[in-house]
């Protein structure tokens, strides 16, 4: 079954593709598929397993044979004592098979570490987010166990890929519910938030809109899988390096913890009260991000506006007031996403993506610099057109003159009339003018 083709070619393609990002892999495989479809299919299948780190070969074979009832991933001695004392794991600690490299951030409910799946220092680092032990509940542990497959299926260039989801079994002596520690391991994105990046590199309006379109597309992809961020903000959209794709982070985490943590927040309660769908909560956030990218600051409540009855969101200052160079079409999209009334807001992220794409398809829709450039080009084009028309007019005119004059020369003998010189003829045709 296996050696249907040359293994060397298979390996070369696999190793080459493994170095590329998702888009690069897809492009490479589509090219190879034209000539070697079998190899392309096999490498595609292998890459699907390559990007995951919780396959059977990553677990203890004793567990697979039913000889070990818990996870079986190692935890270094003393790691739990250190956590008990300092509230987080130490650098170098091995926790559930992950080696902690450093703390990336610590919030009220979770801690994010840079970690590697292996003790091997050359392994690709990932972002390992662990719930604080005192917050792990039985329901949460169950939810993290059940949701893993769906979240790992979410693959989009603008979503930080989920590598593994579940519970690290740190043993009965560990803090937390039964020593279980809900975790999410994702692709590590070290960079700046989208608005900071846009400001730093003076991103053009067109590029900002392309970024927003990609985010809307990513949100739609997640929504179609039944996954909603619900806490999306500009700080959840990171760009690793100049020119790289923006990535939504924390999607898996947010969707798994929103049930418990977010439902307790005033925001979520208000969302329910205003009949906002989960998708519309994310769309509102996308509107806020778009507003901040285009206006340079977050949307502010409209001065003097009162909160409408039954609605949780306050009307915000129109973006056209914050940035007068914004075109009306663009303003309409931003304000539709930020409509306080869910009935007037986009219902699906793909509708917002489509509107942004439609605007992007228009030539020089808004960007003042781009508009000036196009204006100059258009002026030049008009000048060339007018010039061409003048030349064509002259040619027509001359041709007509010639036609009017020359037939007499030619036709005259037929008609038997006297030949008339061109000069005379032309003089006769002029009066009409």
């Amino acid at each position: 079954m296996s050696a249907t083709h040359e293994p060397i070619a298979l390996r070369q393609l696999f190793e080459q593709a493994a170095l590329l990002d998702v888009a690069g892999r897809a492009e490479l495989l589509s090219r190879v598929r034209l000539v070697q479809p079998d190899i392309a299919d096999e490498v595609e299948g292998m890459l699907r397993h390559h990007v995951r780190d919780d396959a059977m070969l990553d677990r203890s074979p004793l567990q697979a044979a039913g000889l070990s009832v818990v996870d079986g991933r190692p935890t270094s001695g003393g790691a739990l004592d250190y956590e008990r004392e300092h509230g987080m794991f130490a650098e170098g600690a091995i926790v559930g098979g992950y080696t902690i490299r450093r703390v990336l951030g610590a919030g009220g409910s979770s801690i994010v570490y840079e970690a590697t799946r292996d003790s091997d220092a050359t392994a690709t680092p990932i972002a390992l987010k662990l719930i604080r032990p005192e917050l792990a509940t039985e329901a949460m542990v169950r939810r993290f166990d059940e949701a893993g497959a769906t979240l790992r299926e979410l693959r989009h260039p603008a979503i930080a890929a989920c590598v593994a989801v579940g519970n690290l079994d740190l043993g009965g002596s560990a803090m937390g519910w039964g020593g279980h520690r809900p975790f999410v391991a994702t692709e590590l994105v070290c960079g700046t938030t989208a608005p900071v990046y846009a400001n730093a590199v003076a991103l053009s309006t067109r590029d900002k809109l392309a970024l927003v379109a990609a985010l809307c597309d990513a949100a739609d992809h997640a929504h179609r899988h039944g996954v909603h961020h619900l806490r999306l903000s500009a700080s959840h959209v990171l760009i690793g390096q100049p020119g790289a794709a923006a990535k939504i982070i924390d999607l898996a985490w947010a969707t798994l913890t929103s049930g418990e943590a977010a439902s307790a927040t005033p925001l979520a309660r208000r969302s329910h009260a205003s009949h906002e769908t989960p998708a519309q909560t994310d769309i509102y956030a996308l509107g806020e991000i778009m507003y901040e990218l285009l206006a340079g600051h977050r949307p502010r409540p409209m001065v003097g506006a009162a909160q409408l009855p039954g609605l949780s969101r306050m009307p915000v200052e129109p973006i056209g007031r914050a940035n007068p160079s914004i075109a009306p079409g663009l303003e309409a999209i931003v304000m539709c996403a930020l409509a306080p009334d869910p009935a007037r807001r986009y219902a699906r992220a793909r509708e917002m993506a489509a509107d942004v794409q439609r605007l992007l398809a228009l030539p020089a829709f808004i960007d003042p610099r781009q508009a000036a450039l196009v204006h100059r080009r258009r002026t030049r084009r008009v000048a060339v057109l007018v010039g061409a028309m003048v030349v064509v007019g002259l040619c027509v005119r001359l041709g007509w003159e010639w036609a009017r004059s020359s037939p007499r020369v030619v036709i005259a003998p037929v008609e038997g009339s006297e030949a008339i010189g061109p000069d005379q003829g032309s003089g006769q045709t002029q009066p009409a003018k």
Partner: protein
Amino acid sequence: MNDEKTRITRLLEDASLGRAGATDALLPLVYDELRKLAAGLMSREKAGLTLQPTALVHEAYLRLLGPSPMNWQNRAHFFGAAATAMRRILIDRARHVKAARVNAVSSETDQVIAADSTPAGEMGGTHDADQLIALDAALEDLAKRDSRQHDVVMLRYFAGLTIDQTAEALSLSTGTVKNEWTYARAWLLHQIERRMSPPAPPSSPARG
């Protein structure tokens, strides 16, 4: 016990010198010891043990050879034999789990087909057992394609050695072991997936 220890030590030395038959003679001894340890685990299945194969292999090593220091080459041969023994024990166990499940389901005649289409999560140990059996077959193919990758997987998975330990045991660089493991892992998992996925209906076009 001391006689056996001396015998195993001699066998390991013979194996490291490449003497014929030493590895074959070593295997049943390691197998017996590991099987006893595994049998002990079976009776404590619900005790919540957290075990990597390396713990079992080290335990067997200590029982057979004691805490006396031994050169790495001899230990490497021991781990090689232990990985092979562990594979046999675990595959036998997986087949046993699967057979037990099939028998149990067969007694409820209507459920036979349902069992095959039950989602993996609900299958408990049977899905894992199927994966192990599929891995065993895929490993045989891998041995024919690339014996080095096969050896790396055996030591990493069935003996629980780290990348560094595997490199030392096989006298390879850690970079090579890492590359071989990465490739072999993806290849094997893909093969396992293929073996476990239901065959395509005859009407559908065949794909490579």
